[in-house]
């Protein structure tokens, strides 16, 4: 086994095993479950491990070099207009192909699917172009975030309440596992042409700005369409009794997910072909590697999505429904927090983000610290989401103060952390959240007799919010630690030591 393979296997096991064990423990101790869904769940978990590993490998081999290449090339182009057009087209195309968006559009019956998809895609396109322009023109990110998120908060007062949850969810959902590695790498490439002191922090913020687009788009749509009730999102559960049923459940899901993944990879693959034809950037060896990488990404995501949707989804709904029943109702909060703590790790794009951060900051921010930070963040957000279900708190009462805190923190924290924080918000809410946490909260909501559209939804938005606060708090801590280190270093300079700033020429001492 090569070290790389060992590293990837370890990584994906670490990501998937904890959440699997937690859910199993809950099913044994608190909510007894039939063996059918448990069998589905275990097979799903196994698929997640393999799919996650392949996806990471693929993102590293295909998405990262491609994104960095496109970014570096865009940075070099002197005129701004074509760059903006390309960025807009990229953002819009990737979003149209995003499978999560199709799912979301079906959950909002009030708006015709096409209208929703195209306006969200346009939203992402416009904001991605804006984000690229920001890096090229070196506009400061915190101020931009302040303006855009401020606009978002103001607009949220004008939108029908029932749209609010879905609008904020749209922001988290549209930046999916294919988009994230590519856009992150694009940022690194765009900033790589510079060597000024803001280059590292400027390579972040693309995801943050691109996730504002869909929120604003759905909110604007909400002003024009009359809200209707969504049909309940939890799918009817089929009876699973035999091993054949288990196999059948997964096999019948595969073609659909394969189609989705292929469709969403298509624009990026086409971009790679066009880019290579225009610039001849990649050597023969790299081209081959990128293509194999696309293969890995595709296979990995199909396995991942199939595992999580077929295996995890039904268990999520079941858990939600049964825990929400009377004697254990309040257990929803601590159990939700426990699940939230371990579930971020299993989000496929998170590991890509952490690696990127670790390499851009040269280890100043370790992947481990990021993982802990995100875990704590999502732990709190799932806890809040469950509390909201029980107490029927409107979503705006949590989201608006939350975003205000996040914006206030962005004034205090070094800009690098602001970019990372707002990016990680968009990344933390991926397929694991939509396919497991959402069914969980829909299940709980049904039992508690709440309104699915306004109460069960919004969990994605909360998962996207808390990491922003958590990562920025870590930034504050980092600053404090840095100052301590500086003091320590100053103490090393003894009195009487030569502290003049002159150049010394050295000669070897006699051996």
């Amino acid at each position, binding site marked *: 086994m*090569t070290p790389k393979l060992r590293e990837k296997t370890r990584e994906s096991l670490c990501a998937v095993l904890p959440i699997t064990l937690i859910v199993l423990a809950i099913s044994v101790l608190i909510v007894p479950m039939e063996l059918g869904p448990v069998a589905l769940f275990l097979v799903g978990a196994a698929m997640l491990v393999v799919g996650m590993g392949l996806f990471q490998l693929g993102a590293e081999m295909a998405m990262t070099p491609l994104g960095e290449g496109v970014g570096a090339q865009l940075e070099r182009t002197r005129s701004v207009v074509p760059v903006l057009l390309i960025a807009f087209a990229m953002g819009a195309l990737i979003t149209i192909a995003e499978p999560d968006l199709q799912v979301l559009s079906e959950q909002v019956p009030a708006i015709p699917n096409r209208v929703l998809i195209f306006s969200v895609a346009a939203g992402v396109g416009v904001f991605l172009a804006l984000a690229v322009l920001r890096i090229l023109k070196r506009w400061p990110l915190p101020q931009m975030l302040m303006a855009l998120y401020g606009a978002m908060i103001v607009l949220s007062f004008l939108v029908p309440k029932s749209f609010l949850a879905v609008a904020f969810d749209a922001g988290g959902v549209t930046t999916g596992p294919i988009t994230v590695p590519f856009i992150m790498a694009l940022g690194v490439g765009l900033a790589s042409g510079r*060597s000024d002191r803001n280059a590292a922090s400027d390579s972040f913020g693309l995801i943050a700005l691109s996730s504002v687009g869909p929120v604003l788009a759905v909110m604007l749509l909400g002003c024009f369409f009359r809200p209707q009730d969504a049909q309940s999102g939890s799918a009817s559960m089929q009876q699973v009794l035999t091993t054949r049923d288990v196999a059948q459940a997964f096999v019948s899901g595969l073609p659909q997910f394969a189609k989705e993944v292929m469709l969403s990879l298509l624009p990026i693959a086409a971009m790679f072909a066009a880019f290579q034809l225009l610039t001849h950037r990649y*050597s023969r060896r790299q081209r081959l590697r990128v293509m194999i990488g696309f293969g890995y990404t595709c296979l990995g995501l199909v396995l991942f999505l199939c595992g999580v949707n077929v295996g995890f989804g039904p268990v999520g709904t079941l858990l939600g429904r049964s825990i929400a029943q009377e004697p254990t109702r309040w257990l929803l909060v601590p159990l939700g927090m426990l699940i939230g703590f371990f579930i971020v790790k299993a989000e496929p794009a998170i590991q890509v983000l952490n690696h990127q951060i670790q390499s851009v900051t040269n280890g100043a921010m370790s992947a481990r610290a990021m993982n802990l930070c995100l875990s704590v963040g999502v732990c709190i957000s799932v806890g809040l989401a469950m509390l909201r279900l029980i107490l029927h708190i409107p979503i705006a009462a949590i989201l608006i103060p939350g975003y205000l805190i996040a914006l206030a923190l962005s004034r205090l924290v070094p800009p690098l952390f602001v970019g990372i924080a707002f990016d990680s918000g968009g990344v933390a809410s991926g397929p694991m959240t939509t396919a497991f946490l959402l069914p969980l909260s829909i299940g709980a909501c049904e039992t508690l007799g709440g309104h699915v559209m306004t109460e069960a939804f919004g969990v994605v938005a909360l998962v996207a919010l808390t990491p922003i606060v958590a990562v920025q708090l870590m930034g504050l801590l980092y600053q404090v630690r840095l100052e301590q280190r500086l003091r320590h270093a100053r103490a090393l300079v003894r009195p009487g030591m030569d502290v003049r700033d*002159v150049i*010394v*020429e*050295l000669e070897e001492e006699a051996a």
Partner: protein
Amino acid sequence: MSEKVNEKRRASIRLLVLTVAPRLAEKVSALMERAGAPVRMRLAGRGTASREMMDMLGLDSGEKTLLLTVLHKHAADALLVRLRRGLKLGTANSGVACTVALSGGSARLISLAQEMGSAQETGRKVMMEYGVSLVIAIVNQGFSEEVMAAARPAGATGGTVISGRRAGGEETLQLWGFGVQREREAVLILCRTEEKAAIMEAVRAACGLESEAKGVLLSLPVDSVAGLELG
């Protein structure tokens, strides 16, 4: 121009370059802190693949962290010994460290290194059975594996790649001739000094300035190493 002549000093100061897997970086930091290494710089790099097939499948070349620090020779050699033990350098995929003699530096840095070095005893000398050189090949982005493919038959056992970028305007690019990309990669290869010439020639033939890789080569004398497996 200033009349000032630089100060001269007799001191053996070393630049220590360590390449390890990123997960070991924290441990290394602790070891270096204890050795009193005053300035540490961290760079991100990656290892080169050992087999072509594995490279194509993306299963080989892992991430590496490079740590640079400036130390007195005594302290540097003592640190090499401790690194070799603490990180098991020399076993498969652990890492490698070498030191290069410095010929000058800022007074504050040198003084700090001297001060730390004087605390060390001279006893622990790293024995070198053969001379070692550090070959650096700087090529266009994407050609590092080609460099290794050429260097391996000539005796190289492995390398580390650091991504960088050409500094300088378009005019310099023209001077070098068409095809020097902005993004460049530096491949660091530690080898026996007697094999150095052959390795450099092999890399030049495959990835030199006349090739698509537009590679330039240089080599440095290495003072001591830890963790280098040369057959």
